[in-house]
């Protein structure tokens, strides 16, 4: 763990009190030209000598026992080089390993990649083929004969919790903090948080509102499908090129599943076309590696869009019941919730995070939270921007809006009156440090949007707030001073949202050089220190922290070098504003000294490796105006404003982009997106034509308000940015719909047929 050795810097200024020179500016991103000219290399672009093509055969059933797999006809097809099934993967046992941002049961991971004795969802991978062309591979997959015993499926969380529901796993017993149930069930985990006395709190309330909510399964919807290319060398070393949020976690997962030490697995992260949490767990990488081992040639495997929808991890559907009591003054006296999240085929939904987020925006004296992690016959869920928090906010923020209506309270005043602040003890126990909930809500309240009245028939305005923890975790960088005065920065975080630049800017700020004088690149697992995934809104915080440490390391070395050249002691030299200053008016600019480095001794290479605490939580407050067509139920968004505490906006344009992107994904989640399942458990809308994500035609400009409440846990006061903007939108939209047409939506998505149904039922 790194420690903050410097004096905390005031917001907007460098350590010596001077204004930032680089932080807060908007330089052109270093990878911009490659991206806009199409020259950036993504996984699908990879071409290797002797490349073969893989295809994955997937289950047509949502729940079935595999009685036999006959691959003989596929293997006999000309052009086929290898066919593999689960038997070709290592049996890892039921071990649980830490992948940096969450623990994984390796047997579940292995069975998810290629099913062993059962398929647990439609699209579950069963076998894979490598062939001279993808067409031959696909044809061969069709020749694989799998004999199934079809079993009843359960795809709804509450049905799965009922006694007598079809069991996905005979060996799954409900865990209650280390206490194991005696009978197997689909409930993998139950936990509870309590604070104060909820009975007493509800007894003191003037009004109590209790409602039930349902949210649908939705996908992250990243534009680039999963892909992996692997080359298993005869010397037993494997190289994997892939689209991932974390090269090191791919290395560990592949090593475990193909039974190699991690030193024999090299992962090269390609550019990534979106992840949002869905590109952390591996799917294709071990398959490509084993196929390559069988063939002796590199093998590339790509997913189709249907594969992505049906075979990778969406975010969970959920059932949430919330009860909130408020006294006559508008203060919350008690809050209680029951939350059940679908984990998909294997345990591990984000119920823990959802449960810890649901009441986090408020100072609640008496609270109780029960959370359940439930397996169902759907793909195993993955993280998705602030995992678990959006479902929770939809439920709570709709109830708080109803309370405000009943008590005739201004919804933002209600949130300010009950806001969590520094010192507030959360219902799950810990006490908040310095946070920006109040400042964020005040920013929304002072916005032009909030101050501008909304008029018109069937129009309504809604607000909602949201919280996400953010996280720190491990990051590494190295930085080499070049003779021309630039610095080559190698970082371990895959770049999804422009983080090459936001990290380079922190290095540049610390060194007193320009952002363009830093040449950032993303390293592979053999060329940079261990770095956890790009997720949890952590990269600009933690990897930026590592860059700061690397810059400080360079400063120390350059001071020593200047002292050597000037023949003085190092303590006589100081690093000031990008220059080395010595006795008697001696001075080198950074560039002047860099030019002398290779002539005066060893190269100067800075290193930074951190595992920082103090990531600082993030709060968001959103306002939305809608117009609802009462004849169709269609919701048009007229205006949208998102306010968010970001600590310090390193590159404001990227911060705005993250806020806008998160809000748009939340809007899609709220209004349109869902997995449609038929009675057999088959997804019926696994294309982007039928799975409706918002486009620019559906949306106005998302206005952003950047709130900067400094995070004392970071040298430049950074808080994570990328996740919390997805949290408020569904609730804000539900509240706006209510104020437009008078119907309370308690089920996501609020698509036209569902809104119309409620209007007609009114």
């Amino acid at each position, binding site marked *: 763990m790194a420690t903050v050795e410097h004096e905390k810097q005031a917001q907007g200024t460098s350590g010596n009190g001077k204004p930032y020179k680089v932080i807060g500016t908007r330089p052109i991103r270093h990878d911009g030209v490659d991206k806009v000219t199409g020259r950036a290399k993504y996984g699908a672009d990879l071409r290797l000598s002797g490349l073969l093509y893989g295809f994955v055969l997937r289950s047509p059933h949502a729940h079935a026992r595999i009685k036999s797999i006959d691959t003989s006809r596929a293997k006999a097809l000309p052009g086929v080089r290898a066919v593999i099934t689960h038997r070709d993967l290592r049996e890892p046992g039921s071990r649980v390993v830490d992948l940096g941002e*969450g623990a994984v049961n390796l047997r579940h991971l292995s069975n998810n990649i290629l099913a062993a004795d059962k398929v647990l969802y439609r699209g579950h991978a069963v076998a894979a083929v490598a062939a001279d062309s993808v067409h031959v591979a696909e044809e061969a997959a069709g020749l694989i004969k799998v004999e199934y015993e079809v079993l009843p499926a359960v795809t709804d969380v509450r049905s799965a919790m009922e006694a007598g529901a079809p069991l996905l796993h005979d060996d799954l017993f409900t865990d209650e*903090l280390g206490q194991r149930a005696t009978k197997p069930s689909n409930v993998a985990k139950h936990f509870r948080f309590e604070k104060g006395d909820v009975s007493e709190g509800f007894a003191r309330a003037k009004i109590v509102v209790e409602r039930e909510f349902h949210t649908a399964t939705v996908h992250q919807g990243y534009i680039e499908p999963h892909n992996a290319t692997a080359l298993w060398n005869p010397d037993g070393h494997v190289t994997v090129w892939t689209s991932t949020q974390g090269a090191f976690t791919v290395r560990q997962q592949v090593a475990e599943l193909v039974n190699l030490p991690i030193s024999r697995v090299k992962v090269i992260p390609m550019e990534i076309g979106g992840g949002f949490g869905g590109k952390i767990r591996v799917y294709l990488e071990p398959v490509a590696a084993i196929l390559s081992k069988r063939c002796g040639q590199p093998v590339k495997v790509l997913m189709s869009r249907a594969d992505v929808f049906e075979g990778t991890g969406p975010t969970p559907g959920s059932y949430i019941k919330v009860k909130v009591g408020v006294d006559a003054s508008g203060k919350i006296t008690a809050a209680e919730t029951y939350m059940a999240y679908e984990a998909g085929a294997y345990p591990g939904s984000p*119920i823990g995070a959802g449960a810890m987020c649901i009441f986090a925006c408020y100072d609640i004296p008496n609270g109780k939270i029960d959370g359940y992690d439930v397996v169902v016959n759907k793909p195993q869920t993955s993280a*998705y921007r*602030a995992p678990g928090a959006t479902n929770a906010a939809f439920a709570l923020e709709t109830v708080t809006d109803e309370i405000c209506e009943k008590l005739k309270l201004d919804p933002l005043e209600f949130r300010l009156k009950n806001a969590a602040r520094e010192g507030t003890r959360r219902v*799950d126990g*810990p006490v*908040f440090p310095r946070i920006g909930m109040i400042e964020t809500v005040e920013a929304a309240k002072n916005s032009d949007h909030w101050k501008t009245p909304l008029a018109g028939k069937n129009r309504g305005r809604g607000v909602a707030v949201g919280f996400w*923890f953010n996280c720190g975790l491990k990051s590494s960088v190295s930085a080499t001073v070049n003779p021309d005065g630039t610095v080559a920065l190698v970082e371990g975080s895959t770049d999804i949202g422009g983080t090459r630049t936001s990290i380079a800017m922190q290095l540049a700020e610390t060194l007193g050089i320009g952002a363009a004088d830093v040449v950032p690149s993303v390293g592979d697992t053999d060329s940079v220190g261990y770095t956890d995934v790009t997720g949890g*809104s952590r990269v600009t915080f933690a990897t930026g922290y590592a860059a700061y440490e690397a810059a400080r390391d360079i400063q120390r070395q350059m001071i020593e070098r200047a002292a050597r050249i000037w023949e003085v002691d190092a303590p006589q030299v100081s690093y000031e504003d990008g220059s080395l200053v010595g006795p008697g008016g001696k001075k080198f600019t950074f560039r002047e000294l860099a030019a002398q480095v290779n002539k005066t001794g060893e190269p100067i290479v800075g290193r930074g490796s951190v595992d920082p605490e103090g990531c600082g939580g993030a709060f968001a407050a959103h306002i939305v105006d809608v117009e609802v067509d009462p004849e169709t139920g269609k919701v048009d968004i007229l205006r949208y404003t998102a306010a968010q505490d970001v600590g310090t906006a390193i590159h404001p344009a990227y911060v705005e982009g993250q806020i806008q992107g998160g809000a748009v994904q939340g809007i899609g989640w709220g209004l349109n997106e869902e997995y449609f399942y038929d009675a057999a458990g088959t997804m019926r809308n696994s294309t982007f034509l039928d799975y409706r994500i918002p486009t620019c035609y559906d949306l106005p400009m998302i206005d952003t308000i950047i709130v900067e409440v400094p995070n004392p846990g970071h040298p430049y006061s950074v808080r994570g940015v990328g996740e919390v903007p997805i949290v408020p939108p569904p609730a804000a939209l539900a509240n706006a719909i209510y104020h437009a047409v008078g119907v309370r939506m308690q089920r996501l998505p609020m698509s036209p047929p569902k809104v119309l149904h409620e209007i007609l039922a009114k």
Partner: protein
Amino acid sequence: MIKVFIPPLLRPATNGLDQIEVEAATVRQVVAALEKRHPGIRERLCADDSLRPGLAVAVNGAVSSLGLLQKVPDGSEVHFLPAIGGG
């Protein structure tokens, strides 16, 4: 003294106590002190020589990646929470 908050589902193992004060310098020592007073509690919190998978520890509100190795300054609050991951 360290103030340890006992999660509700663990309270049957502590005779219903929701907070317990212990002398400890690390989370490992916190768990050992709890185990000494309430035998069986370590098994609920730990597997082998680590916190149980899916469980995290927060000291003074900050979730630690060090688990049992995390130091706990005198006067600290310790919470055992579900481990979370972001997207």
